């Protein structure tokens, strides 16, 4: 038996842990672009902000799209509710609220991540320290994930936590693709220019997939392969299909446990079937941007339905 409020806390705790890490990954990809390309760095930072869903809020505060401004805004600015610092703080507040549902190891890893990031992000980041900082953020969230997977009982508490993780992750991957969808569209020349290559690598880097891509596809980046990898690959842990495989599984566990199916089950299955049946060619024919926009909408709806069906409020 689980309180609706507790399920809600677990769900959001995990969404925010995922988000804290995704912010670091996005800044990492942006930084890479800024280092390898001298022109148009501000355009790149703008797409990083777009992927983070923070472009509007940023432009209200800053005029210049510099490393210092963007990384400050996305990593340590507490007035930005999605920044790594705000996310880890929200995750920790939720963890504190649902503390009785967590193992001691899980709670302590979240509490320690919060303490150490708070300390690290207390002062403005020196650009030279940025790579170290990004590593540290990823390490802290990896430690949380490690203690979570290593110690939590696989029950409804685990299921609601995982729902949060995968809804957030699917949203994140879809947004990254949507911001850059135009560089993936088939062009007249199939061999990409150097510029395109950088763009493609950047997309892969923002989901930590630039190395594993080569294990699965050719060494050369091809836009259809990249899209295939991030949307349809079953084994790539940040692909949309992967996320929905687990969303489907955990929702099924809940339905079996409780002996009751809800609207969210139908929605998840519909999306899962769509991903399973679709080929990358169909998606491009349908329009990549249209596909992604629709996906983001459906994914958000699934989140709302889960909240309603399991009495989060």
């Amino acid at each position, binding site marked *: 038996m689980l309180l609706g409020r507790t399920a809600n806390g677990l769900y959001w705790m995990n969404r925010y842990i995922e988000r804290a890490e995704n912010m670091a990954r996005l800044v990492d990809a942006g930084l890479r672009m800024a280092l390898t390309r001298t022109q148009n760095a501000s355009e790149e930072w703008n797409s990083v902000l777009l992927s983070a869903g923070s472009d509007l809020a940023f432009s209200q505060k800053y005029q210049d799209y510099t490393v210092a401004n963007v990384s400050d805004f996305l990593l340590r600015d507490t007035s930005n509710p999605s920044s790594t610092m705000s996310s880890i703080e929200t995750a920790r507040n939720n963890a*504190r*609220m649902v503390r009785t549902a967590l193992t001691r190891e899980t709670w302590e890893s979240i*509490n320690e991540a919060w303490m150490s990031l708070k300390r690290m992000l207390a002062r403005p980041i020196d650009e030279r320290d940025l790579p170290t900082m990004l590593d540290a953020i990823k390490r802290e969230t990896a430690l949380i994930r490690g203690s979570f997977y290593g110690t939590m009982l696989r029950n409804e508490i685990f299921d609601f936590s995982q729902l949060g993780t995968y809804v957030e992750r699917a949203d994140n991957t879809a947004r990254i693709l949507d911001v850059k969808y135009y560089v993936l569209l088939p062009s007249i020349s199939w061999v990409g220019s150097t510029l395109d290559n950088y763009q493609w690598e950047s997309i892969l880097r923002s989901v930590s997939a630039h190395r594993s891509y080569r294990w699965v596809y050719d060494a050369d980046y091809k836009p259809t392969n990249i899209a295939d990898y991030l949307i349809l690959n079953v084994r790539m842990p940040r692909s949309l299909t992967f996320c929905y495989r687990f969303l489907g599984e955990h929702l099924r566990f809940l339905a079996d446990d409780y002996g009751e199916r809800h609207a969210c089950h139908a929605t998840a299955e519909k999306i899962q079937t769509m991903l399973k049946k679709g080929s990358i060619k169909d998606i491009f024919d349908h329009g990549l941007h249209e596909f992604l926009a629709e996906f983001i909408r459906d994914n958000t709806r699934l989140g709302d339905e889960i909240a309603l069906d399991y009495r989060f409020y």
Partner: protein
Amino acid sequence: MAAFDEMLPEVSGLRRPYQAYDRWLKEQDPARLTQKMEDAERVFRKTGITFAVYGEQEASERLIPFDIVPRIISGQEWRRLTQGIEQRVQALNAFLDDIYHRQEILRAGRVPKELVAKNEAFLPEMIGVRPPAGVYTHIIGVDIVRIGENEFYVLEDNARTPSGVSYMLENRETMMQLFPELFQQIKVRPVENYPQLLRQSLAAVRPQGAKGAPTIAVLTPGSYNSAYFEHAFLADQMGVQLVEGQDLRVVDGHVTMRTTEGYKQIDVLYRRVDDAFLDPLTFRPDSALGVPGIMDVYRAGNITIANAPGTGIADDKAIYSYMPEIVEFYTGRKAILGNIPTWRCSEPNSLKYVLEHIGELVIKEVHGSGGYGMLVGPAATKKECEAFAKKLQAKPGNYIAQPTLALSTCPILTENGLAPRHVDLRPYVLVSDRIQIVPGGLTRVALKEGSLVVNSSQGGGTKDTWVLDD
């Protein structure tokens, strides 16, 4: 004013309960002990054992300082203490039952009628209500001070929602982590089973109509409450739900909680929410922390609320001064544990005395707690005393006064080695069909040299409390 030191009194030398510990201590390298002190702080911070201090925005989460020197009580001392506590707790429950029913003690003139009738802690809504199993106060923390070898006094009865038990448990846990060898050398009675005892105790007072194993829940005001850590800790250790008012609703004459599978009935509610906030339909209408209609369910006998609403009348500071009479009235025997002499400022003669001796006394608000709003005469400046005297004259009924006692001391570890500091003791008592007292309790220690205020909100710390198995 020389205080009695529980380890090394000036007159008699090292006391027996501390002998084995002292032997061990002498073998330790001071640097290692300092290291252990730092380890302890890290353990507490990591596990998030924090409390909130009201009125301090920046430090909204702070640690209660922990001292690594245990406070040791012999088996014999403990047996005597528990007899006194049991007697007192029996009297408290009998008093509550009487006050909300026949009021024999008022008719007998042993406690003034107006002291009860005009008391905010007295809930007219409880008149004629008999809680399940007839228990009013289920969990009690009796604050005890010592001033000599055989002189123990009760400072306060906490019969509403005493806190601090999680520190008793975590302090022991931490000590066992830091000094496992000590527990092999010295037989200390365990306190770890408190959560199990609490659970059994709450289950035993379930409503008559509850079938099978009762559903128990802990009601917390929420994660911003200063004692939230403890609420979560106890729910976790008991394996029950930690609920907030927003999770609860009255459905078909029962209190239920909103779960992922719908509304589920609760039989026993261990509430850590004050009376006033318990039911907006009966008490404060602006309360969002309680459950609308819970009092109706309670009156119908369909839920146990622990502690019962209205128990505050028994630990009220004005009632406190009548405790010797109350104990004798209901148990037929003299109180084993004495009270500290108390002047009720509502009485003109006492007020006169208190005003004349303000510099020597401790003056407390009748309804205050946590060490807020009190004056420690000997430690206060002349100006503070004068200001307090004005408040006192304006509302004398709000205050009681007690002599400044030479609370016993226990050594703590400081940068310059061991140094004596004043302590008190809060053992925890569970009442169901029987009375159980966990061998130990929370020892609070005033960390500032010479200070007599042990409250954590006022710079006090805690110690592990050992009851020897001898």
